[in-house]
């Protein structure tokens, strides 16, 4: 350990490799940073000697319009990717708040996508290859630039959600999609959470083709709104919206209804709850709850224990935001096994594994993986599961 923390802002992969190699040789610890939008997530890092700021590694390496593939350096922001693709009528179909700051590498290492994964899959599903700088400063690659590719282990997936514990992502190869003509969101307010969840369940089990289906808590305790996103051609969106409404309200009527066109890549209801940069003094947590269990979990969750809640029916995930009080934290922990805390202010965070730990067999494996990939513990030490 040195007394001062050096800030590195490499402008090339070879410069980053040199920085990593010298850290490796000196036994120095590095903290890798993307856009900082998910810094509050993960366990606290152990003291480090240097910070590597990835933002200058933001080049477009390869973009093939016809092949629907894009390779970018990991420090490129989502909005810079959006802008590039939009000019060609394409897009990256991955939700993320703060797209102007969030980097693709940071988002991948955080392992977080949004409700649109119902239709398009998660960020991990659109990555077809990756380049990773390993702990001895070597540039390594896996996968490729083709959408179907069996060529050894899918190593990119090891780094998804791994908080940089196993290496520094320097490049991601992505599948992109045509930009839809319209993105619309239908909002239907129901008289309670159970009716809103039922309506959502009918939609995901139908042959309708929604992009995302979730319910969101409102200002009043019994005020629950079903949000259904539909994307595609204007005629498709119009007819789907109509049919979604019919299916959603077939058992009980909605109190209120509205339809809004969504702008750019934003998904306001999700962005509001998942934006960790706005969570000062708040807890943001994410519970893995399949749609079939969401009514039970919502029933067990005391309404005073959250300020906002989004239940993503399509992905089986519940997001909860509440004031940073120990009693709320314990209440959430008592309701579901292994909640993941995306934002947790000190002192609540200290001593807690925000991922909820791991079962014994998986824990042994994760330690062995860390020993193999980062034997000298130079990368983001402390942040991953079990403080790895």
């Amino acid at each position, binding site marked *: 350990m040195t007394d001062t923390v050096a800030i590195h802002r490499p402008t090339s992969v070879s410069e980053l490799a040199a920085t990593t190699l010298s850290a490796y040789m000196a036994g120095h610890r590095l903290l890798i940073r993307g856009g900082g939008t998910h810094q509050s997530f993960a366990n606290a890092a152990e003291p480090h000697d240097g910070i590597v700021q990835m933002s200058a590694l933001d080049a477009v390496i390869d973009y093939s319009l016809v092949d629907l593939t894009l390779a970018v350096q990991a420090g490129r922001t989502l909005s810079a990717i959006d802008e590039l693709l939009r000019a060609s009528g394409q897009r990256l179909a991955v939700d993320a708040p703060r797209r102007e700051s969030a980097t693709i590498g940071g988002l991948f290492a955080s392992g977080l996508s949004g409700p649109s994964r119902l239709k398009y899959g998660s960020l991990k599903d659109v990555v077809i290859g990756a380049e990773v700088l390993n702990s*001895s400063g070597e540039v390594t690659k896996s996968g490729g630039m083709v959408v179907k590719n069996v*060529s050894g282990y899918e190593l990119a997936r090891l780094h998804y959600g791994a908080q940089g514990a196993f290496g520094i992502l320097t490049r991601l190869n992505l599948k992109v999609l045509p930009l839809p003509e319209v993105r619309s969101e239908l909002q239907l307010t129901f008289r309670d959470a159970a009716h809103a969840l039922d309506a959502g369940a009918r939609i995901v089990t139908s042959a309708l083709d929604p992009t995302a289906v979730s319910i969101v808590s409102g200002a009043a305790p019994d005020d629950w709104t079903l949000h259904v996103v539909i994307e595609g051609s204007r*005629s498709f969106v119009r007819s789907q919206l109509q049919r979604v409404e019919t299916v959603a309200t077939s058992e009980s009527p909605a109190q209120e209804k509205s339809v809004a066109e969504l702008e750019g890549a934003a998904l306001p209801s999700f962005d509001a709850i998942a934006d960790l940069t706005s969570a000062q003094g708040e807890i943001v947590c994410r519970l*893995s709850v399949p749609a079939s269990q969401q009514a039970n979990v919502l029933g067990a969750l005391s309404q005073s224990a959250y300020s906002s809640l989004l239940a993503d029916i399509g992905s089986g995930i519940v997001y909860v935001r509440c004031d940073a009080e120990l009693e709320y934290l314990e209440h959430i922990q008592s309701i579901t096994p292994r909640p993941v805390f995306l934002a947790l202010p000190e002192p609540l965070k200290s001593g807690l594994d925000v*991922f909820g730990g791991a079962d014994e067999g998986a824990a042994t494996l994760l330690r062995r993986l860390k020993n193999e990939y980062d034997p000298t513990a130079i990368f983001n030490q402390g942040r991953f599961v079990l403080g790895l």
Partner: protein
Amino acid sequence: MRGPVVSVTATPAITAELADIVGAENVVFDRAGLGVYELDASDEAITGIHRPLAAVLPSSTEQVARVARLAAAHDLPILARGSGTGLAGGAIATRGGIMIVTARMNAIEEVSLVDRMAIVQTGVINLDLSAHLAPYGFYYAPDPSSQRACSIGGNLGNNSGGPHCLKYGVTNNHVLGVEVVLPGGDVVWFGGPSAENPGHDLTGVIIGSESTLGIITRAMVRILPLPESKGVLLAAFDSMDAASRAVSATIAAGIIPSALEMMDKVTISAIEAGISAGYPRDATAVLLVELDGPSATVEEERARVADILREFGALDVSVAETEEQAQRLWWGRKAAFGAMGRIAPNYHLTDTVVPRSRLPEAMRFVEDVARDYRLTIANVFHAGDGNLHPLILFDRNEPGIMERVLEASKILMRHCIELGGAVSGEHGIGIEKNDALPLMFGDADFEEMAKLKRAFDPANHANPRKIFPSAFDPYRSPMSSVARIDHR
């Protein structure tokens, strides 16, 4: 290169222990019984014949775990085998050991429509799952051509594809979680019913690992509502070039068909001689396009695709108006491999992939190779994914032919990689393509893969000698000059 026939036989002590775990009727150790487990569907001229010490047919995860513990205690390799339809030798016992056959682990344990999830034992046959789900209006999307026979576990091991990957992705995109018996016998779960599990989720790395990291005993898979409607078109072209350009043009127009298959003249003749599917005999290439989704969208896109195909030179476009017509158009494609027998008694399939935009060049190269090597090559493949399947047709009895076939196959694969492609699209690496991987990766890349192998399988018990190039030993760990920190 024919591999040696391993002549080691199981000791009575080991067979007794195995019988104790799975029942005597579910242990195979005699020479005659093991015959069926010496090969899979790969070409034995490449992968050879390898007899396992014993094959066992467990019915539960617990039995698999006990077999794995036993194998570790005796320092024997283990490997999984589903239905033996693999084309790359992944399920061949190159180092002997105990083969764990999943055929009896065929329970569909749970289906939850609202969670769009099913939990299955990995011996479930791919098509059986979709058949089970059909009454509920659901299906399991990955559909390799062998789906009537292949197991979900084999699909997971190979990260299998199929004709519908263009829109729906490969197997890895449809698995939420897996239960794995690690080498040594520990049982772990990765993932879960949620679509994403921040923290650790090693599901994605174990898919495609060909049982070299452990044996997947249960899978939680994503299921989807059946599309409301399907539209099928068949377009005839007078050149492969024109058909290839039409593929790219369709996708560039913002339409993602659920399948986009191409067949060449050799294939069309074989199909028509075999089953008379009604394909245009005078065409040099045909494209089979399938669209799916809500009825109104399918109808609209079908008309747009027909226009694009004509604009790009289609001589004739047939549009299926009824379900029966659609099935008829697919019938030819599905019968294509079987129909090749009319042309030659044997075929060798090269599974390789290029970026879709490079298809015209790749197809011209296939023609050149056929001419230079005096071989008949049929092409029937997933054009939308750029996934080529050149089928080299030959008669094994012709002296010297095998060398020519394998040489041509190697050259095709190498060229596809030069065009930005990969060694395999969907059939796996096994022992068929492991020595081709260095065309894509270097030692540092293999060492990254080796770290994964060593972490999961410190004693090298899980399907050894697969995936890694034969010249690369994943256990020859480069000793670090820096003191290692033990992460306990």
